[in-house]
């Protein structure tokens, strides 16, 4: 299909063009109809009629130019552009699609939009850089004060656990909405800050998008081995290197050459230590539907075991109340298995009493490949449990 342009110079030429309008069988589509001498007439001509139209014009000595040589090609290109641009630029966090999985850039773009839309509540901190030099961003939600007691939430530390990063994005928006509507966590924000690291392992996340959807670890390289990556949930300084992690670089639970060898871990350690006032720490994983508290590296129960167990029971009940999703809870070592060098074992030992880990949906049917339509229900129910933990922390500050 082509689009021809004719600029009638005389009444005869104008008449010839107008004749074309009458020839219905040609199925011409006038983008710009004949209006007068010297004014362009643009005709969209379907392929079967091209010969006839050109012949008609040439026979009458009416000159024309081909404005668009291939309409379909243009349409195809535009479609691609549209797809590309809807992927790249939701206009704001209200048009952002929370029901889909996103790329790192889309999530970083989301964060910037959220900050831009809510400059008095949200700020973005860069706490470090990953092995491959990607920025490690943390969103800070604060209504003021100086170094208020805070809650930390991280998602995506294991890159293949996609529902967690997706939930993190949803949580960020939820916090802003609650604050705007003066409900939910608005009251918590009166006296506490919330820190949220959505893409805690960006190198791994990028790798799951480009190369291996089931990649778990970081992407650090180690001399003496062709294998890549350290398990960021075995790299913390709590029972580091003991039973419950692997010393083999090729293993999925490789603890790394030494504690905090991974910048993704070290940056959080440094942040927590320098902040000094974090009162609750929640690290989010998938899958298994569990709420866990320390320890993973030892059978010794934490001193606050009873309280943590009770809070877990309440949190899990709140979670289930929404869609009936069943969770189990308990200490890491008694509920799943021994795991050393884990995040919340370290944070607990730092004095952060309310240290919890979630394992989100499901229980193995889809596992890591949780269908996108479950993102929002998962985030919604998890949020209820998080609120229980946050409220308990606020009401039991220490």
């Amino acid at each position: 299909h082509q689009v021809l342009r004719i600029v009638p110079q005389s009444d005869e030429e104008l008449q010839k063009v107008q004749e074309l309008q009458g020839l219905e069988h040609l199925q011409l589509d006038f983008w710009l109809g004949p209006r007068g001498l010297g004014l362009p007439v643009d005709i969209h001509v379907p392929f079967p009629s091209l010969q006839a139209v050109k012949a008609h014009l040439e026979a009458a000595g009416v000159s024309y130019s081909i404005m668009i040589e291939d309409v379909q090609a243009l349409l195809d290109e535009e479609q691609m552009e549209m797809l590309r641009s809807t992927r790249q630029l939701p206009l704001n966090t209200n048009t952002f699609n929370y029901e889909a999985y996103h790329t790192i850039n889309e999530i970083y773009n989301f964060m910037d939009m959220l900050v831009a839309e809510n400059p008095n509540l949200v700020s973005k901190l860069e706490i470090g850089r990953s092995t491959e030099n990607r920025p490690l961003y943390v969103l800070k939600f604060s209504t003021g004060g100086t170094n208020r007691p805070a809650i930390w939430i991280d998602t995506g530390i294991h890159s293949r656990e996609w529902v967690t990063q997706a939930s993190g994005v949803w949580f960020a928006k939820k916090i802003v909405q609650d604050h705007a509507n003066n409900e939910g966590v608005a009251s918590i924000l009166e006296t506490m800050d919330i820190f949220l690291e959505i893409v805690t392992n960006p190198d791994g996340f990028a790798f799951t998008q480009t190369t291996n959807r089931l990649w778990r670890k970081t992407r650090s390289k180690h001399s003496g081995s062709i294998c890549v990556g350290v398990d960021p949930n075995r790299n913390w300084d709590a029972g580091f290197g003991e039973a419950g992690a692997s010393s083999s670089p090729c293993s999925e639970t490789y603890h790394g050459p030494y504690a905090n060898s991974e910048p993704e871990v070290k940056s959080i350690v440094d942040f927590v230590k320098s902040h000094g006032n974090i009162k609750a720490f929640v690290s989010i994983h998938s899958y298994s539907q569990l709420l866990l508290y320390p320890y993973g590296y030892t059978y010794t129960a934490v001193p606050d075991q009873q309280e943590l167990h009770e809070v877990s029971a309440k949190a899990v009940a709140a979670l289930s109340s929404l869609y009936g999703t069943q969770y189990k809870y308990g200490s890491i070592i008694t509920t799943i298995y021994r795991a050393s060098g884990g995040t919340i074992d370290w944070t607990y030992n730092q004095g952060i009493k309310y240290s919890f880990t979630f394992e989100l949906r499901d229980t193995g049917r889809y596992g890591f490949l949780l269908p996108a339509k479950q993102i929002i229900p998962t985030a919604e129910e998890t949020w209820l449990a998080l609120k229980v933990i946050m409220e308990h922390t606020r009401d039991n500050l220490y």
Partner: protein
Amino acid sequence: IPESGHKYYLHFSTEDYRTGEDAGNCLATVLYPKKKSPPVVSIKCSHTKDQKEIQEEDNRLYQKMKHQNKPITGNNIPDSYGSIELALEPVWALAVAGSSSIMWQKSTETLGYFLAQVKSVRQWIRKDDFIEFDYTVLLHEIPTQEIISCHMRLTWLPGHPLKVKHFCAAQSHALDEGSGAESGSAAGPAAEKGANF
């Protein structure tokens, strides 16, 4: 049980994989002997589903897959976003059933599995009534967190038990590449520190 091993008493319910409806209860005892031999299992289940209904569903599934002009093939089921093409659902269902047999054989008192993804599937057209598929399935191993790649050949005819042959890649110091088969070594010559037990 001193001198004998560990004995587990299980009471569990089952549900239809597709619909989630209750499919009955089972009572079982599983004895893991001290030596590394497969467990001794005794099990008794009650079935809530009607045999005839099961047969009809099997036949429907079978008909869908038998009457293809081209062999069915597929990759990455579910895909990265958790979607399964409608047309590939029967093939996925068979993979779930077949890999459960692999997982059953591989699991131990301390090692369990889930089906992470069907990496690829290819149908082999047969002259007889059986349908046959070649699969590469990825199993998620707990607690090691490893992704094990297994090749599975599955043959089936309704009314007959599923025939499954499999071969799982040994864990090795292989490169991690794009194929998605996550390999890693669970053992070196030295004693594995994180035995993951």
